[in-house]
């Protein structure tokens, strides 16, 4: 394994860890989505890296493009839900989401 691959994998892992850390650390709904986006960056990197490794970069790029489209739509839906929640609750605090208990 060459050094660049090692650094790429490390960077991807660090981004995922940053995302997970952010996910459990925040009360803010928007920041939760930012955390997920951070993790998705790492996944993008991993996908291109895998194409780079096995020489099938063209295929890897098509994956990345499809994935980016999906990512955007998820972000838009999430933002829409957050804005609607803000209109109901007056804030974007996860501690306010207590209507569902069992």
């Amino acid at each position, binding site marked *: 394994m060459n050094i660049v691959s090692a650094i790429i994998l490390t960077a991807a892992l660090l981004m995922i860890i940053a995302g997970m850390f952010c996910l459990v*650390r925040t009360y803010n709904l928007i920041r939760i989505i*930012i955390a997920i986006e951070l993790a998705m960056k790492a996944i993008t990197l991993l996908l291109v890296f895998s194409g780079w490794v096995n020489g099938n970069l063209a295929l890897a790029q098509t994956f990345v493009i*499809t994935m980016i489209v999906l990512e955007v739509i998820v972000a838009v839906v999430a933002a829409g839900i957050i804005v609607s929640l803000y209109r109901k609750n007056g804030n974007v605090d996860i501690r306010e989401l207590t209507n569902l208990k069992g």
Partner: protein
Amino acid sequence: MQQFFIVLCLVLMVLAGGAAVMFRSMLKSSISLAVASALLAAVLFLMGAYWASIFELSVCSGLITVVFVSAVSLTNTDRCSEVRVREHKARVAVLPAILIFAGAALLFILFNSDFNIVASATPASFSAFKEALWSLRQADILGQIIVILAGTFAVIVLFKERDNI
């Protein structure tokens, strides 16, 4: 040289990602995310994935940032982002330790696996990319069409319709 730039961009990207986590202000967080995304685009470009890089730059670091910034401004929550430090001191200390430990274990596993690298850093030709996209990935293109439809309906439901409750 190229490898040096890849590494440099990666380091900067991780730093920007960390900044996105650490900033108190939501606006600054979103912009850090955009920067991380742009740096990722640079990495992808250097690795030879040109089209992925263009998409990453325009869509992720452009469009998604717009979405986040609008969400932040629509909800006026730029400043009220509180952090869970006060209530769960113990948990906040333990968690990074677990994460870093898990990460180290994963890295160890990955470094011990032997990647048979075939063609590192050979940029894909446009024709190969076109072939891959249009004839191999028909299902994904159909999926993209459907997901854009879904996004449209989502916007209609979530933004356009006035709620009557």
